[in-house]
């Protein structure tokens, strides 16, 4: 087991003995399930209406009516829930002085940051995997196209990774977990709201740049079933950028 794997294993173990993961996981799954139920309910109500108007034979598009709405709503849920998952990563180490152990072990800061990020990402992927139950059950009772659902899941995975990296960064800034959670809320909300600024500025150069910086349009395209290399590049590069910033923050903590 390499040092990075040791960090991942320790973090996973730490997550599962603390109640945070269970609470976050339960809330996440509950909201996902509830939203799915709502959208399926709306869809079937619409189907009944259509059937009455057209005298039967109406085909409801689950992809548009259920999954797109579901994935779009999950943005907000992830924004609220994921900072709770990441807040303790560095803040707790600082508070309990275990940070000193990590920093005096023969392991690089990048390895520590990577290990911590990967551990929460794995937990998040596990939660996403559990939500797979919803499309699986729907598949039994209806027909829909799996491809946009899979790109939606890809979008959720990438968006989650980005949110988690922002959370890891915020956690490295402070030794107070609450502050860490709020800083990541703030950063993510800003990332959301600047897309509004981008559309306000319209099709100008600055408007396009601001809209590009926000995660909104990149996520929307994936939810609509479009895989564009530029979106993948966006998620990949912003993830790496956030982890790099985390590295700098952790490094600078040594100078204080």
């Amino acid at each position, binding site marked *: *087991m*390499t*040092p990075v*794997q*040791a*960090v991942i*294993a*320790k973090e996973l*173990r*730490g997550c599962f*003995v*603390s109640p945070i993961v269970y609470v976050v996981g339960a809330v996440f799954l509950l909201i996902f399930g509830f939203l799915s139920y709502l959208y399926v309910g709306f869809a079937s109500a619409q189907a009944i209406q259509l059937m009455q108007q057209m005298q039967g034979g109406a085909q409801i598009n689950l992809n548009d009516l259920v999954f797109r709405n579901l994935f779009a709503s999950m943005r907000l849920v992830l924004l609220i829930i994921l900072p709770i998952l990441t807040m303790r990563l560095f803040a707790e180490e600082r508070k*309990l*002085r*275990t*940070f*000193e*152990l*990590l*920093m*005096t*072990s*023969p*392991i*690089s800061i990048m390895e520590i940051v990577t290990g911590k990020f990967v551990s929460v990402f794995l937990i998040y992927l596990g939660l996403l995997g559990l939500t797979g139950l919803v499309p699986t059950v729907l598949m039994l009772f209806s027909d829909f196209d799996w491809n946009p659902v899979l790109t939606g899941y890809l979008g959720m995975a990438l968006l989650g990774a980005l949110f988690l990296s922002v959370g890891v960064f915020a956690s490295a800034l402070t030794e107070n977990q609450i502050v860490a959670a709020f800083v990541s809320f703030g950063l993510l909300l800003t990332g959301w709201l600047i897309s509004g600024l981008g559309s306000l500025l319209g099709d100008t150069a600055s408007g396009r740049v601001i809209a590009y910086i926000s995660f909104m349009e990149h996520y929307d395209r994936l939810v609509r079933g479009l895989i564009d290399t530029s979106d993948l590049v966006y998620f990949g590069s912003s993830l790496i950028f956030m982890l790099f910033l985390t590295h700098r923050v952790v490094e600078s903590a*040594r*100078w*204080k």
Partner: protein
Amino acid sequence: MIDVHNITKRYGHHTAIDRVTFSVAKGEVLAFLGPNGAGKTTTMRILTCFMPPTEGTARVAGFDCADQPIEVKRWIGYLPETPPLYQELTVTEYLTFVGRLRGMTGRNLTSALDQTIGRLELGSVRHRLIANLSRGYRQRVGLAQALLHDPPVLILDEPTVGLDPKQIIEIRELIKSLAGSHSVILSTHILPEATAVCQRVVIISGGHIVAEDTPEQLSARLRQSEKISVTLRTPSMGCEAKLRAIPGVLNIFPGQTGGNLLIECALGRDMRDEIARVVVANHWGLLELRTVSMTLEDVFLQLTRHEDNQPLPAEAMAARTADGAVATEDPVA
């Protein structure tokens, strides 16, 4: 093994340590003594690459702490002031994690784990959560963490804090047993600990090194004269004058009890037999005759109290301790 040259650490306008220079040979145990806030922890943090010095160089086993931190860290076992423990892990899990962080794997790790647990007598708690351990056990787990990979250099920040007297003796024995094969720096403000465990003492105060030597030499050096305590059964009126007449006797003070005298003699001469001869010849009844030595505690207080009044140039002190000559002037005056 450890070479610290002129390191300075500033936090904003506050200078935590100022041009500190010392070295530790292979197999040597060095005590870092000083009042709280003297710069002990800062120095240790620089040596363990937790933070870089503002100026100067620190080298461990030939590797520079600022430029080759990973190599330095491989050589070091470090017990910080607060043992860095994860409450949610058991002792075994915690030590396994620490071992893996240091690149230990497989059988190598298991045997080191068993050995360290045995050495620190943690066998009975090895499967308990660290959160549920008493302070003494936590301190020992912290020490186990530092010893696990059998590092050639050990840096221990107050290793016996929180232990009961029996455990303190055990840990001191353990540290003594490490001498010879390991270089150890330990910080403490418990003076007998330094005398019991260490071959050399560095006294640091206000960020400066104020003295560096063996505990015995330190007290000898700071003594300006030999002092001999004499207790007489039947002192006569003229006894003080007669004792003062012995060549070499500088001064005589009355002691705490009647019949007790404190005789100050020239440095480097043992006057006890001459004093005894005079006492016996005069039939004063010799009850007790002994040299009064300065404890490390006295030395420590003298040196650190001095710091408060007027700073002693570090160079002067270094020169004094380096040339090995007996100090003739009083550093406190």
